[in-house]
């Protein structure tokens, strides 16, 4: 379980997150949705500690993450996997080196054991032969899959995904969505996905938090979302033709 209490984040005098309290359920695929610029990426990065929040607290299970110092946070971060919008693979390293890096730094495994784990993760994301490729040689979908492999290599308890579908075609988006959902269920990970893709919301969203103008505007399930009378949420959700059709068929 990940919990944020009264989170405030201010950039240049502007409250980008304004008193946001959220609870993300353990072992589920939790979604943060909202329009571009609503503050959802800031919320996600605040939760993992990439942005220092100005007020409030963040808890990983019962551990207050905000009160930890740099070294104590490092220990928690080993339990966190994160998939960035652009993949954020290290350009100068091969796929294999990218995935093996956390193992090299934080485990005492032999090279063979590490390679076994790398092979397993690459197979899990359906890229069994990509070891020696560099990020520049990968397609957008492959980059996301390698990023997922790297994120799960240390068996994380928490998985954060920042717009995992951005820049991908609809078919590849579905592949990535399904992969995130499968991994969440297989390893009982608490996953938080930041997205504005309504296909993802309807496919994988178990718990959904809607952020609007830096505030938590709504939360519920994907079944609740179509019946909500929240105007801002409806404006966002029914901007998509697919969602409009879904509502019409209800």
């Amino acid at each position, binding site marked *: 379980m990940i919990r944020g209490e009264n989170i405030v984040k201010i950039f240049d005098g502007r409250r980008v997150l304004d008193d946001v309290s959220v609870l993300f359920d353990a072992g589920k695929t939790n979604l943060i949705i909202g329009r571009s610029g609503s503050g959802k990426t800031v919320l996600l990065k605040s939760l993992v500690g990439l942005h220092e929040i100005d007020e409030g607290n963040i808890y990983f299970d019962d551990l207050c993450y905000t009160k930890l110092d740099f070294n104590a946070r490092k220990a928690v*971060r080993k339990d966190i996997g*994160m998939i960035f919008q652009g993949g954020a693979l*290290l350009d100068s390293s091969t796929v294999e080196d990218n995935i093996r890096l956390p193992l*090299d730094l*934080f485990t005492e495994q032999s090279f063979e054991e590490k390679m076994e784990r790398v092979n397993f993760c690459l197979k899990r994301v359906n890229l069994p032969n990509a070891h020696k490729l560099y990020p520049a040689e990968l397609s957008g979908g492959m980059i996301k899959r390698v990023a997922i492999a790297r994120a799960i290599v240390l068996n994380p308890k928490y998985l954060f995904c920042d717009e995992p579908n951005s820049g991908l075609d609809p078919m590849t988006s579905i592949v990535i969505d399904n992969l995130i959902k499968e991994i969440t269920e297989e390893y009982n990970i608490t996953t938080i996905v930041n997205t504005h893709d309504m296909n993802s919301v309807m496919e994988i969203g178990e718990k959904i938090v809607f952020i609007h103008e830096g505030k938590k505007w709504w939360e519920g399930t994907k079944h609740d979302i179509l019946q909500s009378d929240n105007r801002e949420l409806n404006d966002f959700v029914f901007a998509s033709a697919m969602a409009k059709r879904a509502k019409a068929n209800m």
Partner: protein
Amino acid sequence: MIKFFDTLGRYCLLMKKVFSRPEKWSIYRKRIVFEMDALGYNSIGIAAIISIFMGAVVTLQMAINLESPFIPRSLIGYATRETMILEFSSTVVALILAGKVGSNIASEIGTMRITEQIDALEIMGINSASYLIMPKIVATIFFFPLLTILSMVIGVFGGWVVAGFTGIMMPDDYIEGLFYAFRPLSIIYSLIKASVFAYLITSISGFFGYYAQGNSLEVGRASTKAVVVSSIAILVFNLILTQIFLT
């Protein structure tokens, strides 16, 4: 002035992070060797080319300007040696490397920052500042003095070549001048300067790259700032070190 102290403070905090205990020494050792190749070995060419021409030009200038019969011709070799050892091989080569290596480091780390690669390292629990900057600093501190020695040898050789081929002086006179009043302390002074300059170039460039934000334009600006500030720092510390060691 406030901005200067703010920047200096952030630089000091970054250096504290850079020199904190590494996650695993074996990984850092590999990275240091990699950086020695990328930042040091790959700079041999430019250092050699500049040094041979500068040595040749210094010799020519000396020969043209010291035409008095009261001044021995061997003084040209002596002056070339002193110029190369005391200033050129450490300071001028460092200024050139500030351009080559400094812009390389700032743009590499800056690009990593804006493409979230540094965030990815942080999320993995890695001290990104130490992982990215410390191996570069250690690699250059060890390798730049080697480049300096190479530059001294090649520069002096360049002077000997021009002395022999242009006929402006006898090569034997040049060699005699090279060995005249030789002080090993000058070489030690020059190597210490090279190590200090290496630290300045890599740490300052790393700093500007690490705190780059925005887009590719900002990376370009960070790269330019890194070169300018490194160059100024080299000149200031050259003055300070000269005052400390040679007076």
